[in-house]
């Protein structure tokens, strides 16, 4: 692998690590707050279904994991 490719992989890993640090923090705070009212599948779906913001957030979260972990 070329030096350029290896450096780009390193940059991708560092950038996704920074993103994951933020995503994990938001996720943990959200879970801690959400669980106060009880944890059922119906309540979770009630909060998240149809919410574009949360879909985008978790989409980004999964994408960052998918890039970060294999590197």
């Amino acid at each position: 692998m070329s030096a350029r490719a290896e450096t780009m992989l390193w940059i991708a890993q560092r950038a996704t690590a920074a993103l994951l640090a933020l995503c994990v923090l938001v996720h943990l705070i959200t879970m801690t707050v959400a669980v106060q009212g009880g944890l059922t599948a119906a309540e979770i779906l009630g909060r998240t279904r149809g919410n574009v913001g949360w879909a985008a957030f978790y989409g980004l979260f999964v994408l960052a994991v998918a890039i970060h972990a294999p590197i």
Partner: protein
Amino acid sequence: MQVSSKLDVDVWRGGAQGGYQRYQVPRQDSQTVLDVVTWIQRRLDPTLAYRFACRVGMCGSCAMTVNGKARWSCRTHVAKVTQDNRLTIAPLANLPIVRDLVTDMREFFDKWARAKGQFSPTATRRDDFARVAPASSARKEIDAAIECIGCGICYASCDVVAWNPAYLGPAALNRAWTLVNDSRDGDQSARLVAVAGDAGCHACHTQSTCTERCPKLLSPTASIAGLKRATTRAVLKGAL
């Protein structure tokens, strides 16, 4: 010097398959680990192999593993490292053992060459002296890293070297960083290629054992971080 008691010293003898041999050495005031090894070789066993030259912390040839940590033996006082009047002295880790306390340093120095640790001049002897401002940030970066004596302590202490034998190691990368900051050098692109990737600066896990153990109080960790920034900038500019 005053003899106060005896030291029990376990010294590695033989090659990679060797073992420790115990010697009793008298304690003396201001005694260094190199004094202990020399006493054993001069008084007890002339076949003991070890390296030293300057005895004052300049040449970098007397590094050994003392009680589990790589140290420069000429500047390491026994009083600071001994536990219950016992010392365990072994050759440096991460390097092939030639015999007793002597390691084969070829790979260590070959990696300096692989990291493009050679200065590549852009001027000739007919040109005027290059002017480098002492207060410039590049010169300050060089000043912080240039005093390496090539003792191999950082290399022997680095877990990444142990895991990945191709890794160039802290000393070679530290040397490369001084040249990356040298405005007189003409081989910058090739050097950044040489130090990038899994065998180069990007393999460093920033554990900082090299910085913790460097007897010259340098920070190879900071130099490697500088190389990571320099290679990142080069990639973003399309220069790598």
